[in-house]
């Protein structure tokens, strides 16, 4: 314990300062959300009216429903595709592997605005090329909307899932597969009884990650959405462009609380897991 005293205080100082920097604006928002005054400058009186307004705002509920709908569908599809691609990547030794890996890995690096615009360009080109054909043949109108949003979300979530699962697969002890085979298990049996249970935490983590990313996304959605589509981030942004409406204070606090609870639970689960492993 003597060594602790000799350690520099500087890192702790930076840490505390950063935490203050991170939380002062958020705390201010939380305080403002209970202020009956419309502008945060002066304290008027304690009030829950913004929360009341928040829960009675129909547009928010609609945006929330859209957000959850998009998040659920894109999480389900991207988790399936991402897990499969991780498995394929893990097992393949083929020359295509490099290209495949780049396809899955680089979307994590490309800034979201580029993903947004490139998908927009794809959809616009497709509508230009086959829009009229589809209309006359099937009576379907090709246009930007929920479908394009979901496609976009699946695309960027998939890579995250694949990477998380692939990480898990790389940690996974390859001799376990040999052991299963050695004990007489077929390929299928080994997959369902050994591989899948082992990578399941990775899949769940990947799915959670995908879900959070989908709920959080503004930029890509904004590029590929149709005229009337609103998700929660889109709603907040359009409200913000009009100023700093006090309802958003209340909404931010709700967001913060939900995030807090989810991260807290996730952290508890992770530490519990690593303890039981030891």
């Amino acid at each position, binding site marked *: 314990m003597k060594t602790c005293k000799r350690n520099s205080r500087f890192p702790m100082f930076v840490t505390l300062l950063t935490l203050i920097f991170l939380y002062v604006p958020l705390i201010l928002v939380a305080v403002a959300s209970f202020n009956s005054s419309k*502008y945060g400058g002066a304290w008027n009186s304690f009030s829950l009216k913004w929360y009341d307004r928040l829960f009675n705002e129909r547009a928010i509920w609609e945006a929330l429903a859209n957000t959850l709908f998009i998040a659920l569908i894109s999480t389900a599809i991207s988790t399936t595709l991402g897990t499969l691609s991780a498995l394929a990547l893990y097992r393949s030794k083929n020359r295509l592997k490099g290209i*495949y890996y780049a396809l899955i890995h680089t979307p994590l690096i490309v800034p979201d605005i580029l993903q947004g*615009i490139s998908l927009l*360009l794809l959809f616009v*080109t497709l509508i230009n090329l086959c829009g009229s054909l589809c209309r006359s043949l099937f009576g379907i109108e090709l246009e930007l909307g929920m479908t394009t949003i979901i496609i976009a979300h*699946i695309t960027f979530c998939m890579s995250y899932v694949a990477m998380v699962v692939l990480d898990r697969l790389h940690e996974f002890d390859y001799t376990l597969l040999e052991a299963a085979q050695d004990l007489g298990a077929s390929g299928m049996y080994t997959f369902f009884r050994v591989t899948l249970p082992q990578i399941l935490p990775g899949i769940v983590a990947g799915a959670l990650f995908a879900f959070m990313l989908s709920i959080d996304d*503004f930029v890509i959605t904004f590029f590929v959405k149709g005229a009337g589509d609103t998700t929660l981030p889109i709603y907040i942004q359009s409200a913000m462009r009009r100023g700093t409406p006090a309802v958003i204070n209340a909404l931010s606090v709700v967001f*913060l609380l939900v995030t807090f609870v989810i991260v807290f639970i996730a952290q508890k689960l992770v530490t519990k897991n690593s303890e039981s492993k030891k």
Partner: protein
Amino acid sequence: MKSRLRNISNWIIGAPSFVWLVVFYAIPIVLVFLLAFKPVDAYGGLGEGWTLKTILDLRNPSYPAIIWRTFWQGIVSTAVCVAVAIPISYQLARMTSRWKNVILLLIIVPFWTNFLVRIYAWRVFLHADGIFKNLLVAIGLIENSTTLLYNQWAVLVVMIYTYIPFAVLPIYASAEKFDFSLIDAAKDLGASSFYAFRRVFLPVISKGIWTAVMVVLIPAFGAYLIPDLVGGPSSELVGDKIAQRVFIDRNLPHASALSALLMLAVFLPMLLGKWLNHMRRRRQTREGRT
């Protein structure tokens, strides 16, 4: 025969995502480069034929300033985030008490809090009628007429604010695996704390630091929402310009030309780094053999 079966099953499980990524990721990127050579039609759509006009338009005198600003803001915010993240990670990795988990939680929460909420908080914080502004005026640091929002400093601060957790997490992940008895060993050999930190701790966690640089620098280059919401006309970045061309001018070719530029700015250094790494490794193996 067994390996062929394995190959086929691999194809079956790999094909859907492969096709998906080719269609919705690779082809769109190619389109970005292609459409930069298309003319615009009168209705904001794509015209017929091909043209070099859009590319030549990029010589517009307002662009160099925007590109330069995007560049230096990206570099500065990355530098600050990493500089702050290293001592934090060091501290966190060293701690063993319950406070470690609390601090970790406090850093992860902003990471997962909605991006817009975080920007919004700064709009409230820096608001013209806000408590911070009133405080600064009361101390006499600024005039009442100064605006804290809608300038490039606001953009920079909010960028640092949003990217700090991005920088902490990869560095912490490396630091957590660091064997702190190495620091004790260095001190035992007569090194000062700072010398041990610089010559032992930093090199060992360098991989985490490079990851942090990547995950901050690249989104910073593509930043669009932050300048859009807390910046003003004088603090536009490349990201804003792309969005502006899409949503306001309806000029998709122009937007793709700008995006192509940004794409090159992201991918070229990455490929270069990869190539250098490859060359170094090849040289090492060759040296190892002789």
